[in-house]
């Protein structure tokens, strides 16, 4: 079946969406684990709340950055080809 219209642009747009979406799956799970585990830890030892929170935000940021690698590469693919 022959495709009509601007197939190149359509493919780029689909790739942008797919790459960002798939790239968000892993970090999404990771961020969930980080917050969940922190809540667990605070529940067990509430006096460590301050220390744990600092580590939580750091871990959150490190994990979350992975989405932006995917987004960045998706933009590169969108812009170049």
């Amino acid at each position, binding site marked *: 079946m022959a495709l009509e219209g601007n197939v190149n642009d359509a493919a780029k747009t689909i790739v942008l969406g797919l790459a960002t979406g798939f790239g968000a799956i892993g970090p999404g799970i990771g961020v969930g684990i980080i917050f969940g585990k922190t809540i667990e830890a605070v529940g067990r030892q509430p006096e460590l709340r301050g220390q744990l929170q*600092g580590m939580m*935000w*750091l871990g959150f*940021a*490190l994990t*979350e*950055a992975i989405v*932006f*690698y995917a*987004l*960045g590469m998706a*933009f590169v693919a969108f812009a170049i080809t």
Partner: protein
Amino acid sequence: MIVPFLESSTNFDPVAEFTDFVNHPYVELPLGLDINKGVLYLWISAAVAILVPLLIIRRGLKAKPSRSQTFIEMVYDTAYTQIAKAGLPDEGMRIWFPYVATCFVFIWAMNVVGFIPLPFSGESVEIAGVDFPKLQIYAASANLSVALTLTLVTFVATHVEGIRYNGVVKYFKSWVPSGTPKPILPLLIVVEVLSQFVRLVSLSFRLFFNMLAGHLVIAVFLGVGALMAASLGNAAFAVHIIGWPMGIALYLLEATLIAALQAYIFAALSALYIGGAIHPDH
């Protein structure tokens, strides 16, 4: 970025907002030192970061603090205990606490200024015969040059301090854990050297893409109705009803939480990297 307010538009290109201004500087200078919108936002952010704390502190600090004084004390306390103390060893505090605290306040100011609608879009709208400039949100930190420059300062500082405190040989030896078996040593050296440069990418990209994606998501939610009006006609109103509350909710989240969080993360990681170079653990 400029949000196409309830008008049908097929050439709504959010990404162009982050690239076009480079080609239209206010003042052209040699060596690419043009003064464009990004530079203007940097200056505004620097002015906010300097003047707001200065004005509050100059009004006089009291034993029974006012609300603004409480705020400044909270920022200082966060920068001192949460950011600097957590990463830096005691002998590095004197030099590098001011640096990481400045990073924190300056990046926070950049991010927050980036969420205030300001009239620097270069476009205007006519209301009752008078030209008003269109309001726009744009963050200086949503620009890889800014994020990468700040990261390079941290990167250079890390290695200079590592060499200054430990000596060249001991510092570079500390990158690889001691007692590593000989056969896997070459592999480990490659990985460790690579990880030093990955820090450069991750630290700058985190700040840059967080702010860029934040602004893009807001613009897409506010503008998606206008974008779809071309194909949907009047039914695009339904898209506006969903899009605008989402956009406003995301705007509030970004302007309050993410703006502060990214500044905190950048400063905390800078402190951690510099502290790790001064006192290599492994």
